[in-house]
């Protein structure tokens, strides 16, 4: 039985685990964007926040993923359901690239343009939404792209705590020393990562200011 044969035969389960995987990555990315962009804006506008925010995000990034899943397990409400826990862990990992790129993107806007906007009487809010964020958008998007690609890979580990996703195949395959099973998890995960990378990369290029 070759690998493709296996995929076809188990297509229902492959599809189900892929959707689960997408859900874990999708929700955590949305959360990371909702939290990370405001934090990035804060650190770009008020330098006091820069070090604590980026420093914390950096430290989180250095915690080994399996250990982070383990650390979060005893937390009351979180530990009740494996997928909650996996989403929080993935969100924490996705924060750094989102925050950092938001920060870099906003700091990278030509100071002359910002000064002109202030001088013309734009309110700080108008300046942010009409000038800074649009001009930083492609840089922010490239941070989101990194976050998504990393999350797709990391989410396979979430299966270790029973959160589902394509990691299930991989862990099962490891336990049964079955390469086809491992590939059935790894190949769709790689395809997901590559298509996310390509799709968001295309969007990023389109939104890049001239």
């Amino acid at each position, binding site marked *: 039985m070759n690998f493709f044969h296996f995929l076809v035969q188990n297509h229902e389960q492959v599809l189900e685990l892929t959707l689960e995987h997408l859900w874990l990555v999708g929700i955590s990315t949305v959360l990371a964007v909702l939290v990370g962009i405001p934090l990035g804006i804060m650190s770009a506008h008020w330098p006091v926040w820069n070090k604590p925010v980026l420093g914390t995000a950096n430290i989180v990034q250095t915690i080994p993923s399996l250990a982070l899943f383990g650390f979060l397990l005893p937390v009351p409400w979180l530990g009740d359901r494996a997928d909650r826990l996996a989403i929080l862990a993935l969100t924490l990992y996705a924060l750094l690239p989102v925050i950092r790129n938001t920060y870099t993107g906003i700091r990278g806007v*030509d100071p*002359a*343009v910002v*000064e*002109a906007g*202030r001088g013309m*009487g734009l309110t700080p809010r108008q300046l942010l939404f009409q000038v800074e964020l649009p001009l930083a958008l492609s840089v922010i998007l490239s941070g989101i792209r990194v976050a998504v690609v990393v999350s797709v890979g990391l989410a396979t580990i979430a299966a270790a705590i029973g959160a589902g996703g394509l990691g299930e195949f991989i862990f099962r395959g490891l336990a049964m020393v079955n390469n086809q099973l491992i590939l059935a998890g790894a190949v769709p995960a790689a395809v997901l990562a590559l298509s996310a990378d390509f799709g968001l990369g295309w969007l990023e290029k389109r939104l890049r*200011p*001239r």
Partner: protein
Amino acid sequence: MEQTSTHSPVIEFRDVAYVLPNGQPLLSGLNLQVTGGETVVLLGRSGSGKTTSLKLINRLLTPTSGEVRVNGAPNAESDVIRLRRSIGYVIQDAGLFPHYTVERNIGLVPRIEGWTAERIHLRVAELLQLVGLEPQLASRYPHQLSGGQRQRVGVARALAADPAILLMDEPFGALDALTRDQLQREFLSLQQRLGKTVVFVTHDLREALRLGSRIALLEAGRLVTVLSPEQFLRSNDPLAAAYVQAFGDGLDSVANRGAT
């Protein structure tokens, strides 16, 4: 009414000092009055405090001591957003928004002021003509324009909401000599028609003589002297004389002798 508005100062510096947070003084003891309809050129080398003075007018900077009065009232008391929208601001390299078309760039202040789309469109067309740009440039992006065109758009954008005061910070500094010459000439004719109160920053004596009704010479954060272009050429002040010497012959012919 007309009489008082042209003779009482539109902009007035009263004993203004500006010191950086680290204690370095950029400007001290500045007293200067700008009357309605005149073009005062702030002339000086880099670090002399001319840009600092300009930014104190629209409150991009706040004086450490003293006050800046605009239209007879301390500008610190007015709403900063309203104040800035009532003052046109042009900077070197124009500072155009790269993600907006020419039309949106010019129409920005009218748009946030809530003008109707129709009125903005008409105003943009009018301004493009005023600064000598083809109407079809309205849909272009700044990166598709030449340096001279960008600077014209910058001027049009500053004029959009018809402010009575115009602040210009080395607007023609980055342009090639021919384009600069042309824009200076157009500035003069524009100024003759519009009669704005202009504060113009430059380090170029030739430009100062040509465009200014009066020249305020700054050095190391202090106002050295305020002279008309003709007086400047004949001044005994050592710094003014040094400028005249540095810029060489032929200055007489450029000096602005227009009645103010």
